[in-house]
């Protein structure tokens, strides 16, 4: 296993259009935002195609972002409760008094 890992790392470090997992990892956000320059994007995408661990990592990273977004976006409507009367009165008195 160690030998295979070393071979992989040599290819990733010195092969043309190659990069290491660590360097590819640093590109993830720019890649997802569509902000990677063309050459870096090609290098990143090649790495993702060749490296199963990074491929899975990218999929799960994307999924985690979506889960966070759906949690926030799905909840507020369902979580709506009545505004406490006291708070409502405080808002109205403060704002109507100060913005006649």
């Amino acid at each position: 296993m160690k030998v295979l890992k070393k071979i992989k790392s040599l290819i990733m470090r010195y092969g043309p259009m190659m990069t290491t997992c660590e360097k590819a990892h640093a590109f993830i956000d720019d890649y997802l935002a569509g902000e990677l320059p063309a050459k870096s994007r090609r290098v990143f995408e090649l790495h993702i195609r060749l490296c199963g661990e990074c491929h899975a990592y990218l999929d799960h990273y994307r999924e985690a972002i979506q889960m966070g977004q759906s949690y926030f976006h799905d909840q507020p409507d369902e979580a709506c409760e009545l505004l406490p009367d006291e708070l409502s009165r405080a808002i109205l008195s403060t704002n109507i008094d100060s913005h006649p």
Partner: protein
Amino acid sequence: MLSESELIARLKERDQESFAALVTGHGAYMLSVANRIVRNEADAQDCLQEAFMKVFSSISQFEGRSGLRTWLHRIVANAALMRLRSKRRQQEDSLDHLLPMFDKYGNREPQSYADQYAELGVLMQKTQVQDIVRQAIDRLPEQYRAVLIARDIEGFNTEESARILDININAVKTRLHRARAALKTLLQPVISAGVV
């Protein structure tokens, strides 16, 4: 019942009944948005008051390019994020233990999810996923949670997030990357279980 455009027109005329209608109609929603960000009822109520002050003082500038609810959401989210900024701890908490590791050659090291699997238990219902996501986001140190919410949830761009949170652009990018990586680690058991 006023239509949205009628309500806005009356608000611009500073009609007091329309202000009351706005608070009654949208206040609870805005409070829940603030609560989700600051995770504290008293702070959320303060944010709501600040947000309505902003709404009342700037309603004349509302041009209707977005819907009223979207505009109100953005104002209260902004207020809540600014509240997080003001409560920021002096010392930055670490989330290094949740970040991926690489060997000396730059290869990705397998991550251990033992702690998270232990918390997850044997069975997981779909309805529990929302709770797990909420707990995972709550476990992020505040300075990372604030950036994650500003960028990924509220959709503020990097520059806007930097301004709201009073940090520089590079800090926004770095913290976002670390927060996402940590969130991914915390949610890995759910993702692996294929519940979502």
